[in-house]
């Protein structure tokens, strides 16, 4: 009877897990609290030996794009160009694995802030929205009060700061203030903040705005380590935390039901060597009920239209039909088009 009891207990424990997974995608979808997704991916270091930071951020970009967030809602800031660096033995490619499985640079990468444009000021201006009026739309973070934002930062960091471009730093206080300005103007619903640098946990210490879940690759006093070196290139090509995070994300599909709680366990100490730090006190929802695609993907709550307005025919043609080809050929004999030379310089006319 004890065996039977044991089997019963095991079955009772295992069954709910299966019950939850079946149809949990649609269930959790109903509890969604946002309408659109944005991603801000930042790489702050330059020089050839920081190849791995560029590979980190491009791998995240690739995952986020694959899971559905369009380019118009991704802000990619890369401080240096590794693909076209003269020291790159495989030009126009950036790999995140010594076996060159995936070229994360790809053919449709869209970098919004490149090279020396990646500065602390530009980053804070982007977050708070205080950009000059001439900034193009692709460089703006046009979030509203229904947006979930994924912010990923990588580079060299220290206790309380993150180094930008080898010449300036952003402190954790400034970052916390930027998020507070975003909260006051209702520019986000939830933020998932991931940072992969040394002593990364110091960067989220001073956050005080609600609905932010922060994941850091190492605690204060620890260094984040890189994963492996590519002997052909001669530099480390990916960091440990991002490598294992990517391994997890590569198995996520746009309609998967993997939760954030599983993502938080992605890099245990035995593989990451540094301890992954998580700050959950500002985040009200339970990560077990939050899908990974709520931050990394773009799943919209659509509404089927039950009935359309009964409007009178305000003129115009009625039914769908196949025309005779002769009818349309007659229509095409119209007055010949007048050709003109195009403007040499793109002159903007008031639209």
């Amino acid at each position, binding site marked *: 009877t004890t065996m039977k009891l044991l089997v019963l207990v095991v079955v009772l424990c295992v069954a709910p897990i299966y019950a939850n997974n079946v149809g949990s995608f*649609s269930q959790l*979808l109903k509890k969604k*609290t*946002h*309408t*659109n997704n944005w991603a801000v991916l930042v790489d702050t270091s330059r020089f050839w030996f920081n190849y791995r930071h560029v590979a980190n951020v491009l791998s995240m970009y690739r995952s986020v794009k694959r899971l*559905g967030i*369009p*380019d*118009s*809602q991704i802000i990619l800031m890369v401080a240096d160009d590794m693909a076209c660096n003269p020291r790159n033995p495989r030009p126009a490619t950036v790999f995140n694995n010594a076996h060159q499985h995936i070229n994360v640079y790809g053919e449709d990468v869209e970098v919004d802030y490149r090279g020396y444009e990646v500065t602390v*000021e530009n980053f*804070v*201006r982007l977050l708070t*929205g*205080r*950009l000059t009026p001439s900034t*193009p*739309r692709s460089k*703006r973070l*046009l979030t*509203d*009060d*229904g947006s979930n934002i994924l912010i990923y930062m990588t580079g060299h960091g220290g206790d309380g700061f993150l180094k930008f471009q080898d010449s300036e730093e952003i402190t954790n*206080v*400034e970052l916390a*203030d*930027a998020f507070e*300005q975003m909260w*006051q*103007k*209702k520019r986000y*619903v939830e933020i998932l903040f991931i940072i992969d640098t040394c002593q990364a946990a110091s960067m989220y210490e001073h956050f005080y705005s609600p609905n932010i879940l922060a994941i850091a690759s190492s605690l204060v006093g620890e260094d984040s380590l890189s994963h492996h070196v590519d002997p052909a290139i001669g530099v480390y090509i990916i960091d440990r935390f991002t490598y294992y995070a990517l391994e997890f994300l590569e198995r996520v599909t746009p*309609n998967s039901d993997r939760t954030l709680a599983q993502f938080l366990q992605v890099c245990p100490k035995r593989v990451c060597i540094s301890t992954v730090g998580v700050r959950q006190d500002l985040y009200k929802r339970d990560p077990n009920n939050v899908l990974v695609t709520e931050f990394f993907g773009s*799943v*919209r*709550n*659509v*509404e*089927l*239209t*039950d*009935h*359309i*307005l009964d*409007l*009178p*025919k*305000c003129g*115009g*043609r*009625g*039914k*769908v*039909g196949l*025309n*005779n*080809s002769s*009818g*349309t050929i007659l229509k095409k004999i119209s007055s010949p088009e007048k050709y003109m030379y195009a403007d040499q310089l793109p002159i903007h006319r008031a639209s």
Partner: protein
Amino acid sequence: MTKLVEEKDMAGSREGAWAAAGFAAVLVLVGLPVWWYTTTVYRAHLPYSTIVNLSGQPLYHATGMTLVGETTATLSVELEKNLRSMQGIKFQISKRKPRKEEIAMIKSAVSLSDLDNKLTQIMHVAAGTLAVFVVHEPDFFESNVSIIVGRHRLTYVKPGVDVQLLSTVIKSMVIDPLANKRAQGSKLLHQLPGMHKREAMRQVPTEPGYDVTLTLMVPEPHRTEIDWDAKAAVNEYLKPVVNQLESVTKLIVRSQVLYMSGLNVSPKWSTDHEHFALPQDQLPLTINAIEAKLGSFVWTRPSLHFVIYIPRKKQMPLHIHSSDGEPTETNSFLVPRWGGVMIHNIPLAKGNASFPHYVTLDSHWIMSTVLTHLHRLLPIPSLKETEGLKILPSLDTCLLTEWQLDGLARARVSYYLSNIHITLQSLCELVGEISNMVISDEVGGWVWGAVEEWSECGQAAREGRLQEATLYCSRSFTQADAAFFHPSMLALLYFPDNQKYAIYVPLFLPVSIPVILSLKMVLGLYWKPSPRKEKVE
């Protein structure tokens, strides 16, 4: 001998003391003011107290309502009681008896819509108000109808109408309930209670202008050549609505045709219905692939996209199935805060017809769907035909009814008022926190302008002057946002307090320590004589 040395010492130390006193005097009397004047930043004066006062003022719309006709006393009393419970709207109900010409018009009415138009003309119901006409004509109402809602601001009711039904109808007509809840609570979307969560996310946030983009997607242009005169369709259906909404919100309409791109859907052939079935759960991911191609990067205004999709030949005919497995009638869906997508099936050509086939699209169906989606994306109040309620249909225009226009204006004004309050309050907090942030004249001008127009708008809303309130509020909102998002208001450009100490301490401490220590000498000079005097005495 010692006295001489002492006197010399005293003289020397006196000079030293005067020197120390001189240094201290220069430091305090000259140095401090110079440092103060050279490090003050220019801060334009902002109306902080006015902002605090205005934040505390109540936010409501005054809506006048005229009850025309012979009614029982209980009807008007009950109605007033029911309507008083509405948050954000204060009804001012006035009663009057019907005039002779109005009664004559009702008696001689040819049709309801004709009566509605004529009666509105002679009754002069002002913008922002409503009128309820109690009709005693025996044959006016159909058998189970007790309320008829007109296309202007008139509502016709039977004498024995159910007060609960009437008050529900009026509450839905006056302002969209979701928009009202959002503006009143000024909470975030997911903090709104219960069932409103999903619906609350549907309506676009209120902005002064929107870009409306109509996109016709033709994934196989080599097979079908689509003949749709978008310009004519927009001019006939959308342009009148855009002109009507001009005073409330600006809509800029563009249209485009997108070739060679399709939606990534995998429908299954349904033998029951003899068409390809697209289940509802595949819809959430459909627009991600095409979003980048819709050209939303052209302007910074928020855009509303309406997509008309012609399915590929191998997936034709394509119908959307709801969760119960049945095809939807409309074959379209709404993406909250983004726009709408409709699937337009075209007839399959005969086997040996030459490519491409020329197809004309059903413009009326397309534009009706677009307008339906637009009505749901903007906070336009709508009524559902229920038991006892009849809504007069439009016979010749696609315009909104006048009470819908009023409702939209009210929702936008409510939203603007709560938003401006948050923006200006946050700006004041930011400016107060960083005491050396420069406030330029430009920003100061905008803030003063925003505050002035904000108080005017609040006043106009409380007095029921809806058109003026809309104008003031949209101007105030634009100015408040311009001030808040001004590039110079970046906190990063100004030293926070902890960094100020790091800069001032190494500059001033090495200079002030010797001066302070030498002041000891000055003090010593004034304290020493008294004990010596005592000794002599």
